[in-house]
């Protein structure tokens, strides 16, 4: 069984596995090019091991936490592929994928990613299973445990893996808990509102965009 994994919680990552064995792991290390690069990377990563989209049996997508725009690109890509290929699509917490890549992990540790605005996303793992989180907090609130993940260095020096290996993700995804196909936003949409413009008319203190 061929599993295709996509994760856009950091930059652009694509992994392929066959029956739990990693076949390929690809990345485009650009955190702002998800819409441009994800689909080309899926095709080139598959092609690198002599496969095509039609060979894929199952699709998994990292649903974050992470920057929202990138996450949505990953999820809609996965769900659209699932629609066309008529294959199941599963959403997985991206921090679980980070944690799975730590081969000699300590009994308890924390996986961390960058939430920007001086905050981090994190979750606690014990015996390889997520037991707390994910949360979004200041780095100072992360428990004093060994760290892994792309945001770990924002908390303190780390001994675990700092990147999400999408090949490992694809190989281990079937054992990971189903997180659904809605990105793990952790923040309300109005927390993302830009600041208001000055106008002569009294209006709510939020900025809005033009309606078509």
């Amino acid at each position: 069984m061929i599993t295709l994994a996509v994760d856009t919680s950091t930059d652009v990552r694509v992994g392929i596995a066959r029956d739990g064995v990693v076949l390929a792991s690809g990345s485009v290390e650009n955190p702002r090019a998800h819409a441009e690069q994800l689909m080309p990377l899926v095709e080139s990563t598959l092609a690198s091991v002599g496969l095509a989209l039609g060979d894929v049996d199952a699709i998994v997508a990292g649903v974050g936490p992470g920057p929202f725009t990138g996450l949505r690109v990953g999820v809609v890509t996965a769900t659209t592929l699932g629609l066309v290929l008529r294959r199941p699509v599963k959403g997985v917490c991206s921090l679980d994928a980070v944690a799975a890549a730590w081969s000699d992990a300590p009994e308890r540790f924390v996986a961390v990613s960058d939430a920007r605005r001086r905050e981090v996303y994190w979750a606690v793992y014990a015996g390889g299973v997520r037991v707390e989180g994910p949360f979004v907090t200041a780095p100072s609130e992360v428990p004093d445990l060994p760290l892994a993940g792309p945001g770990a260095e924002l908390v303190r020096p780390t001994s675990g893996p700092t990147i999400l290996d999408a090949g490992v993700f694809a190989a281990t995804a079937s054992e990971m808990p189903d997180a659904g196909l809605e990105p793990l936003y952790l923040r309300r949409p109005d927390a993302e509102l830009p600041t208001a413009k000055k106008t002569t008319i009294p209006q709510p203190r939020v900025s809005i965009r033009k309606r078509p």
Partner: protein
Amino acid sequence: MTGPLILGIESSCDETGVGIVRGRELLANEVASSVDQHARWGGVVPEVASRAHLQAMVPALERALAKADVDLTEIDAIAVTAGPGLMGALVIGLASAKALAASLNKPLYGVNHLVGHVAVDILEHGPLDMPCGALLVSGGHTNLLKVDDLTSSITEVGTTIDDAAGEAYDKVARLLGLGYPGGPIVDKAAASGDPKAIAFPRGLTARHDLAKHRFDFSFSGLKTAVARWVETARLEGREVPIDDVCASFQEAVADVLTAKAVDMCDHYGLKQFVIGGGVAANSRLRTLLEERLAARGVALRRPRPGLCTDNGAMIAILGSEVVTAGLPPSASDIGADSGMPISKVLA
């Protein structure tokens, strides 16, 4: 010859649209709107719109395919809005379109949303006679366009220098406490008001403005004038005649839009004129434009309201015209362009 079977995806603002056309025949037009979720803010909140697009995209695709009664494998090409629009919203449609194109092994065409608003009337009233004029009016656009060739030569003759026309409607509706979106609400209230009750200003129509902004619009001064008028009335303890304010405001908007559209047709000798965008559904604008254009022998074309607002069919028909014209598909690594210029029909 029935023409290519094209699936079009639109997600530039708060409407998730999937349309399917065969040549110039409309087979499906499924739209999911997040407008209700924006009402409490009085305008589109980008993050709210983007979350809604993600939830709506695949269900809209499924509904459109069922409605058109076609199988995905029959589709000849995928068209998608590449811009202009909200970046976080555009990328959802674009990513979905890329996944469709790659998995179906069919070409992808990233097209200009504004040109889609012009093209959509082909589905209702047949091919356009070029050159023609176009007025796009909505909460996001106020553009006067000259269309010499739908797929390769479009010029922006005028645009707003501040607010979009629909934005002015939203703001006036808000200051009168009428709700959101403003267009239909103000139009309804205006129906029982006197359009001559209050003389609101017509932006950029004074002689000194015409020299530099003959075909441009400004609605910010009008919005402020309405706000001041209402404020003064309230301060003086007078009851605000909502219907008259709406009718007089709407008259000012329709008058200036129409006057400049007519001037443009005269200037370029145009004989056909298309309107599109949400405000194109406005009753007064349509009546006034029809009257004034007819007096000059210019035919007005307006698609039905459901095709005026953002939808996938307008992207599909533009894709169909682009494919038929033999233009090359977009590269697989194209991005969304939130400020895509009207001079670019294809990304």
